[in-house]
């Protein structure tokens, strides 16, 4: 049944002289190229990209697609990524010509519907976060982190304070310290305790008048709520610093608690996680940020403002950090976010979190007997199981188990993150999975832990390829196809 032609590359399918797209004849008087462009500016040959027909292209990419696992086809409990169902209606609404074919430099009077949508989205995100000032511009979570840190830097500059450090727990996502560095700060790691809470003594020892921001992920990357948060916020604020909330885990607390109410000054959302924006095999996402009123003055330009019944862009913001990307933002993603929020309403969003947390706790209750979780018996939207015992007893790693899951038709959990838990397997079922699916998944995990070591070391067995040689890929990088290599 399987079509092997999928694994040929486009370049190997190319036939000289074959064509896909045909273009209309030029309907204006054609002038000699040499009369329009200087000699030397023109390339004699067009780029040597492959020559294919439309049926070639369709079959190639359709067959290739079947080599992917996806939310539409598989349970995808990839922790921290919130791989929930991506509603089809959102795709349809975002494709309305009245939204899809707008040019970013159209006159404001021709985009009032879009501006109304963006303005309402700003309001909804402010309400969900408890932080009133919103920028929809950042292109992804990491971009939102960096944008907010730039806002913090501008705020301290405005107060004529020079603060050089950004603190984040060792369990933080890699983007946190990386964003700190890009924003011109030194990234300082703060210890977390075995249960995933921030080590307050360590935090205290690192907090000083050089600390600009403490970045915290709460619920944390272990899927727990750090109940010390009020105390942490108090400590950081007393030291004159700001709290940044990495909102990647907002799926646990929608309508339950708000970052602005538990001490955060700034945060980002990941709409491509929490609000079901599809992840697109790597992106696009969006990374809207919400900040306090005071910090609002420093947000990137422009923001959408409402003047009576009219909407406009406000670009006159003297304290703004400026622009963080071209044009307004990943609007297509924001439209989907809007659809998602309007579909749920306040009650629906709370149900989302309740059921995400219910599913995660249920799954935890079914697996912790054979895959212990360092964080204990309870979690919020996700939990981290550790294969450290099995690794010690039998040499079977988290990676082995993850790979074997693929054979049973499940995407693997996130493995080896957070780095603070040995042999970590971070499992996030999301609210859009059923008890049946969770039961079957738990049973499969249990079965796997009883399978022969070699079977696990060599897994997966049923996928198109077995484990790739990643060392070779990095040592001798082959990053593009070349004709010579394929002849050999």
């Amino acid at each position, binding site marked *: 049944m399987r079509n092997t032609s999928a694994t040929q*590359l*486009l370049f190997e399918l190319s036939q000289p002289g074959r*064509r896909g797209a045909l*273009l209309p004849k030029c*309907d*204006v008087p054609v002038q000699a*190229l040499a009369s*329009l*462009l200087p000699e030397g500016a*023109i*390339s004699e040959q067009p780029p040597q*990209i492959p*020559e*294919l027909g439309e049926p070639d292209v369709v079959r190639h*990419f359709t067959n290739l697609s*079947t080599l*992917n696992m996806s939310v539409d086809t598989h349970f995808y409990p*990839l922790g921290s990524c919130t791989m929930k169902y991506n509603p089809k209606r959102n795709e349809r609404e975002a494709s*309305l*010509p*009245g939204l*899809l*074919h*707008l*040019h*970013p430099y159209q006159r404001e009077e021709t985009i009032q519907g*879009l501006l*109304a*949508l963006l303005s309402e989205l700003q309001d909804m995100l402010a*309400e969900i976060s408890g932080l009133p000032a919103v920028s929809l511009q950042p*292109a992804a979570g*990491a*971009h939102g982190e960096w944008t907010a840190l730039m806002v913090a830097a501008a705020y301290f500059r405005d107060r004529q304070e020079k603060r050089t450090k950004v603190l984040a727990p060792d369990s933080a996502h*890699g983007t946190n310290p990386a964003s700190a*560095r*890009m924003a011109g700060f030194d990234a300082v790691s703060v210890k977390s305790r075995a249960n995933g809470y921030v080590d307050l003594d360590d935090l205290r020892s690192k907090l000083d008048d050089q600390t600009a921001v403490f970045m915290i992920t709460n619920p944390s990357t272990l899927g727990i709520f750090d*109940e010390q948060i009020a105390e942490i916020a108090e400590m950081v604020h007393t030291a004159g610093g700001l709290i940044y909330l990495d909102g990647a885990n907002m799926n646990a607390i929608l309508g*339950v608690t708000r970052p602005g*109410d538990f001490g955060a000054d700034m945060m980002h959302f990941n709409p491509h996680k929490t609000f*079901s924006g599809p*992840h697109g*095999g*790597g*992106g*696009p996402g969006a990374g809207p940020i919400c900040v306090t009123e005071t910090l609002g003055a420093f947000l990137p330009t422009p923001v959408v403002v409402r003047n009576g019944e009219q909407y406009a862009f406000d670009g006159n913001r003297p304290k703004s950090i400026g622009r*963080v990307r071209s044009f307004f933002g990943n609007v297509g993603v924001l439209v989907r976010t809007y*659809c998602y929020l*309007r579909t749920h309403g306040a009650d*629906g969003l709370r149900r989302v979190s309740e059921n995400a947390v219910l599913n995660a706790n249920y799954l935890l*209750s*079914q697996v912790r007997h054979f895959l212990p979780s360092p964080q204990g018996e309870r979690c*919020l939207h996700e939990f981290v199981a550790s294969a450290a015992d099995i690794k010690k007893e039998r040499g079977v790693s988290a990676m082995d188990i993850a*790979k074997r899951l*693929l054979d049973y038709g499940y995407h693997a959990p996130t493995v080896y993150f957070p780095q603070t838990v040995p042999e970590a397997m971070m499992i996030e079922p999301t609210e859009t999975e059923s*008890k049946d699916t969770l039961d079957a998944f738990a049973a499969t995990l249990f079965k796997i832990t009883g399978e022969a070591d070699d079977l696990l070391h060599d897994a997966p067995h049923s996928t198109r*390829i*077995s484990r790739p040689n990643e060392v070779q*890929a990095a040592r001798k990088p082959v990053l*593009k*196809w070349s004709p010579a290599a394929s002849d050999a």
Partner: protein
Amino acid sequence: MPYILNTPDEQHAMLEAIGVSSLDDLFTSIPSALRLDRPLEMGPALTEMELSRHMAELAARNQPAGEKVCFLGGGSYDHFIPAVVDAIASRGEYYTSYTPYQPEVSQGNLQAMFEYQTLICQLTAMDVSNASLYDGGSATAEAVLMAMSVTKRSGKVLVLDSVHPEYRQVLETYLENLDTELVTVASANGGDVKNIAVENIAAEIDANTACVVVQSPNFFGCLEDVETLARAAHEKGALLVMVFDPISLGLLKRPGEMDVDIVVAEGQSLGSPMSFGGPYLGIMACRERFVRRLPGRIAGETVDRRGRRCWVLTLQTREQHIRRDKATSNICTNQGLFALRATIYLAAMGPQGLRETSELCLQKAHYAAAELTKSERFTLAFEQPFFQEFVVRDRAGDVEGLMQRACGEGLLAGVPLGRWYDDLSDCFLVTVTEKRTRAEIDRLVRSLSGVSEQAAIPA
């Protein structure tokens, strides 16, 4: 709730298994003082039918390209998108998957990334490409950060003022806290100033300059003297970063043949809708020797345990999840689906399709420029050769009036430049893609010059 599967009975059974009595009990780890004691305030939930109606109403309050004839450009273009792009990119196996962390079940995405990287190298004649960044503006900033890291120079960065003004603003933001001086060099204000720009730039490059940033065709649509600039930069040990237009490379000389070190582009024109500015994709490619300083995901070829060719994410020690604050960038989520669109687009167009597309843009833009400047009211602001867009100076100085009037007549006529360039407040940028017909161009000319009969032209 529309997407929650568990029935009340199932929920009950699950709570029991967990050992709690209610959903609320699942949240006891959140101190009650911090919990929200009221419902969120937002509009009521909408069913699919209601949402559909509501969105149609919002969309009806916009006037998109298609309803209006679009002559707007400046980094976002109304190019034709073949149906195969949407048909394939809307397959759930692509758009509902995550970044390919498990290569055994992501070969579709990984192979498409590898094909994308290859196509970008073929298009630009550069050695290596990453798998996409966010957009043209942030890609430009990332290229500059990369140049600073490659050259170990962080004192100064030079940028021509003909580079997209928003990209320059983004760059300014990225450099704000890094003690790097961003120097903007005037390039083109009327007349044949191309050599002046090169001289200005050459004089500014010093031993602490990381790179020079040039765009060609530039924001005004004109070609820059990239080769001379590259030479000037290299003489002082700086890199040349070039912003290019992917469609123009169906026709124009490729950056890799002009000694450019890092190229970046807005990839929207390769099969992505305008979507009010995003999501698009940032293209970035560079010389082989800089590969370990490239930001973002990269797919690489390898073999599996049975020796079969396959693809993985590679050179990951550059990235944030391994190197944290020492990473080449903080980027994690990129624009994968839009890189896939670009891949499908290029595969569908082929070399001839791409060549003809760029020739149509070139011919139609020149026809439009010639027709427009038949009116006494309009002149071209720049004399340099241009590709698919050009700057028109309104001698009556009423750009706003012209644009407003044209809009009423169903035309998105141009992008006024005064908001970015004080000396071009009487100018607007007109873009003509392959989609524009002669009839549409003639309509534009009639609308704009028709107004000229009423407006006073200074003698």
